[in-house]
């Protein structure tokens, strides 16, 4: 395993660009919430949250410039979360509750 780390120093302009993008995404999520779009509202809200997270993780948390295996660890956390929520929902969405007879 290589012990060399890449010393990537972010340019001030890129930090500001990411901030502007985050603020724009915040405006999108708040703005869309004020319009009645049915179930599309929650889709937009969560997509914006994922986009914001990717921006923060990629640039501010240096996932882009640091060792590739950090991305694997970060993804692993999300995969386990998806299993936790997804497999819980499989039960709740597909089974009817049977009241106990006693």
């Amino acid at each position, binding site marked *: 395993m290589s*012990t*060399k*780390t890449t*010393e990537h*120093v*972010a340019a*001030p302009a890129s*930090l*500001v660009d*990411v*901030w502007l993008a*985050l*603020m724009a995404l*915040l405006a999108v*999520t*708040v703005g869309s*919430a*004020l*319009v*009645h779009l049915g179930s599309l*509202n*929650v889709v937009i*809200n*969560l997509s*914006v*949250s994922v986009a*914001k*997270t990717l921006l*923060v*993780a990629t*640039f*501010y*948390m*240096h996932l882009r410039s*640091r*060792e590739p*295996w*950090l991305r694997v*660890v*970060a993804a*692993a*956390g*999300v995969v*386990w*979360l998806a299993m*936790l*929520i997804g497999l*819980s*929902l499989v039960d*709740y*969405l597909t089974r009817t509750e049977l009241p106990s007879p006693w």
Partner: protein
Amino acid sequence: MAAEVLTRNATAEQFDAPGQERAAAGLGMWVFLATEVLFFGAILASYTVLRVRVPDAFAAGSQRTDMFWGTVETAVLLTSSTTMAWAVRAAQLAKRSQVTHLLAATMGLGAVFFAIHVHEYAHDFADKLVPGIRFAYEGPLAGGVELFFFLYYVTTLLHLTHLTIGVAVLGVVAMLNHRGRFDRSYYTPVEIAGLYWHFVDIVWIFLFPLFYLVSRT
């Protein structure tokens, strides 16, 4: 002898080189953050199940949260992430006083977030929206709305605890920085504390739409 070694920011003895130490610190922190994802994940899973089962109650409960202050809080935390990332940049370039100022700005924004949240809690208390302590909600959705606010408190208080720990950690890092403990080759604590701060920000990025924006039309 030991103190002398410490002030020279020497690589800890279990590591071969500063680069290896830094890589190990990054890996350790990311593994910790993955466990934190699941810590909050258990709550998010119960949120998902309950929202699927009582969607109307969650919509009604969400309408009682303060969207304006929630939006301001989100903007404050996103901005604090930017000042934090900038502090890491300054640390990489060994600009000591700039690091201190940016860490102070990050902590200040964290304090602003904290203050706004306490203001919201006070409002909820006045509106009788605190389950178990002072709760009154009329109508058939009362039970579901109470569950919504129960989750709201558990989640936001847990998040606020993380934020408070983050501010304290940044305070320690700022003190170490002020004492000149970091240089171009060693600024790991700034970077690691930054990762934690960004994680707290990311948790809020999800909590904001889940609690404040369920149904606003």
